[in-house]
Structure formats: structure tokens, C-alpha cells
């Protein structure tokens, strides 16, 4: 027990757990607000990769698809039919499909960068990216809502019909906060938080395991176990990355559906 205690003591003395600074990786330019950072390069790389893949696999427009086209069609079908059509309805969903599909593949690819070497960095773990995407969704669902119901009609449509008159102002304020603030913020924070925390966990498992393996003694066993868990965490992280991309797209579609719905 005392050995372990001293070992742990030694660890806490030398081992520095990964933190916020893990994500700060400026590569070019300044070290400040306009630094070109690793996630910026990764986001550009992701757009290049996705564009190339999508254009290459849909070039032939084959009725009987190749494997690549089949993969693209599966993802497209998931967003188009599984998300957009189901939530927005078959009448209006088609004009939002490009938006939702772009959201999904962009987030999914950048999330998967978190576990794929040599990228090994979840772009969405930097809040700037999820905020940008959430802002786009926020603007879109407000604009389509106002186009559909008119400026005042849209705000009025936030309150469900059939409420007692006394309740209306109260509910309106609540709905306004949800609509203007809660939805975009949670949309961005959910994605960011999952990617950020997941990456920190992975780094912790890997670096911690490595530290214990290299520091010998009884800790070698613990280090081995830690690395086994790191592998499990990697697999789990892939699931989370997919889920977060899906949830973000799903919620974006849900907000748009709410804005274009006839009855709120």
C-alpha cells in the first residue's frame, strides 16, 4: 500500500495530465488570434477530402452503384431520408438537404480526425468551429421561419395555440430564450464538449499509460491495463464522434422543422 502510495506520489510529481493547452497548436503566423492553427489546416483538409470523395464517387451517376458510390449514397440517404424527410416532411425537406448533408459529413469527418493518425485531432474540440456551424443553423432556422410566417407571425408562432391568456407572456419569454439562446448555445457546446472531453480522455489514457509503462515496477501492469482501456476508449470515441455528428444534424433539422411547421 505504501509502495503504491509513494509510486502515485512520484507520478503526481512528474506526470502532467493533458489540459487545455493540449489543443493550442499554432503552426504558422503569429501565436495569437490570427495564428493558423492545426485545426484550421485540418478543417481545410477535411473540405478537400470530402469534396474529392463526394465528387469522385458520384461522377458516374451509375444506376447500379460502385462500392464508393454506395457508401456515399448510404450517408446521403441517412441524412436525406432518415433525418431531413422524416423531420421536415416530404413537402419542404429538399431545400434543406444540402445544408444538413454538408453539416453531417463536415462534422463527421472532422470528428473522425480525432482518432485517425496522423490528424489525431478533433477539429470540433475547438469551440470556434462548432460555434460557426451552430450560428449558421441558428440563422437558417430563424430566416426560414420568418419567411414562412412573416416577422411577427414567426415570433407569435413560438407560443403554442390554445394556452390560457395569462400564460401567454410567460411562455413567450421562455420560448424566446430557448429559441434565441438555448438552442444555438447547446448545439455548439454539446458538440464541442464531447469532442474536447473525449480527446482529453484519450490523451490522458495514452500518455498516462505510457508514463506508467516507462516508470516500471508495479505500475507496468497498471500501464498495460490503461492501454487496453485506451483502445476501448478509442472505439467508444468513434461511436461518440459519429453520434455527435448525427445529433447535431438531427437537431438542426428539428429546429428547421419547427420553424417551417404550420402549427408550432
Amino acid at each position: 500500500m505504501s509502495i503504491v502510495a509513494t509510486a502515485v506520489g512520484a507520478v503526481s510529481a512528474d506526470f502532467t495530465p493533458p489540459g487545455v493547452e493540449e489543443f493550442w497548436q499554432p503552426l504558422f503566423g503569429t501565436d495569437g488570434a490570427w495564428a493558423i492553427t492545426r485545426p484550421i489546416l485540418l478543417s481545410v483538409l477535411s473540405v478537400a477530402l470530402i469534396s474529392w470523395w463526394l465528387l469522385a464517387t458520384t461522377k458516374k451517376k451509375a444506376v447500379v452503384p460502385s462500392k464508393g458510390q454506395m457508401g456515399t449514397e448510404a450517408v446521403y440517404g441517412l441524412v436525406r431520408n432518415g433525418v431531413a424527410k422524416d423531420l421536415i416532411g416530404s413537402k419542404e425537406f429538399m431545400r434543406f438537404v444540402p445544408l444538413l448533408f454538408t453539416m453531417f459529413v463536415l462534422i463527421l469527418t472532422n470528428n473522425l480526425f480525432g482518432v485517425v493518425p496522423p490528424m489525431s485531432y478533433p477539429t470540433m474540440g475547438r469551440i470556434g468551429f462548432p460555434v460557426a456551424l451552430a450560428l449558421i443553423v441558428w440563422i437558417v432556422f430563424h430566416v426560414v421561419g420568418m419567411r414562412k410566417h412573416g416577422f411577427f407571425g414567426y415570433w407569435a408562432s413560438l407560443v403554442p395555440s390554445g394556452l390560457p391568456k395569462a400564460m401567454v407572456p410567460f411562455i413567450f419569454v421562455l420560448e424566446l430564450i430557448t429559441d434565441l439562446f438555448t438552442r444555438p448555445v447547446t448545439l455548439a457546446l454539446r458538440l464541442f464538449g464531447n469532442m474536447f472531453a473525449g480527446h482529453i480522455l484519450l490523451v490522458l489514457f495514452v500518455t498516462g499509460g505510457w508514463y506508467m509503462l516507462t516508470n516500471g515496477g508495479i505500475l507496468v501492469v497498471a500501464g498495460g491495463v490503461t492501454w487496453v482501456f485506451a483502445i476501448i476508449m478509442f472505439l467508444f470515441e468513434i461511436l461518440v464522434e459519429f453520434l455527435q455528428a448525427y445529433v447535431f444534424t438531427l437537431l438542426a433539422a428539428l429546429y428547421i422543422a419547427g420553424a417551417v411547421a404550420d402549427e408550432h
Partner: protein
Amino acid sequence: MHAVLVTAEGGDEGFWATAAPIIPHPLEFFFGLATFAILYYVVAKKVVPRLEQIYADRTAAIEGGMNKAEEAQAQAQAALEQYQAQLSDARAEASRIREDAKAQGSAIIAEMREQAASEASRITETAKKQIDAERQQAVVSLRHDVGRISTELASRIVGESLEDETRQKGIVERFLAELEAGEVVREKVGTAPTTGEGGDA
């Protein structure tokens, strides 16, 4: 908050390394928008139209295939009906032919039977005629022989010179004619056969 202000003024370069992770980095935020815009352009202009085209083509192909299948089925049905009609026609034809053959066969048999009968009667007729002719020949020859023999016998008995005379006078012929006429015969029958028998013996 103070730190943010300082950074915005561009003073503290180390700020971003330890800044709270929920503070958006301006350039990253900008790239978040820009990368989305670029990808959205590609997807909206190229990828989605292509995929929708594929969907439409596939639907058309499937519907076309279904139409084709229906057509083929109708054709098969028509062919089946045709075959069945042909088959029943053929059956009728076959039974008709069988009937004809039966009738023809019985006609042939009757004809053959008739032919055989006429042939048989012809053969019988011919045989009878031949027998008659042969009998006639035998009668003629017998008559000649009997005449010669009896003449010879008589001439041996009466005298050899009688032969020529007898022949000249046709005695034998006359005798035989009388014999056939039957009047004279009876008186001499008793002697003549006896004589004949006696002559033979």
C-alpha cells in the same frame, strides 16, 4: 475578461495557450464558416443534384423494368393462349385424322376382301375352264383313239382292207355319233363294252 481585452489589443501572445476552451479563436471561427461555405457550395451545386439524378434514374429504371416485366408477362400469356389454341386444334386434327384413317382402313379392308373374292372366283373360273378344255381334249383324243383302236380291231377281225374303206365312208364317225345320240347304243352296249373289255383284256 481582462485577459481577453489584452489579447484583442494584441499584447499577450501566450493567452490562447491557456485561455478558457469556450472562447472561440477568431481565425478558427472564420475558418469554421469558410470551410462550411465551400463545402456547402460543392454539395449544393454538384453532389446533391448528382445524387438526386441517380435516385430519379433508379426510380425510372425500376419502373421501366416493372413495365417491361408486365409486358413480358402479357406476351407470355398471349403465347400460352396461342399454344393452347394450337394444341386443341392439333388434338381435333389428330382425332379427325384418326377417324379418317379408321374409315379408310375399313374401306381398304372391304376393297381387299372384294378383290380377293373376285380373284378367287376368277381363279376358280379359269381352273374350271382349263379342266373343261382338258376334258374336251381328252374326249377328242379318246374318241380318236377309240375309233382307231376299234377300227383296227375290226379290220383285224374283218380284214385289213376294210380300214381304208371304212375311213372313207366315215362309218366309225357315224357309229360313234349314233352311240352318243343314244338310240342304237343300248342294243350294242351289252356287246360293245364287253367287246371293249374283252379287247382290253
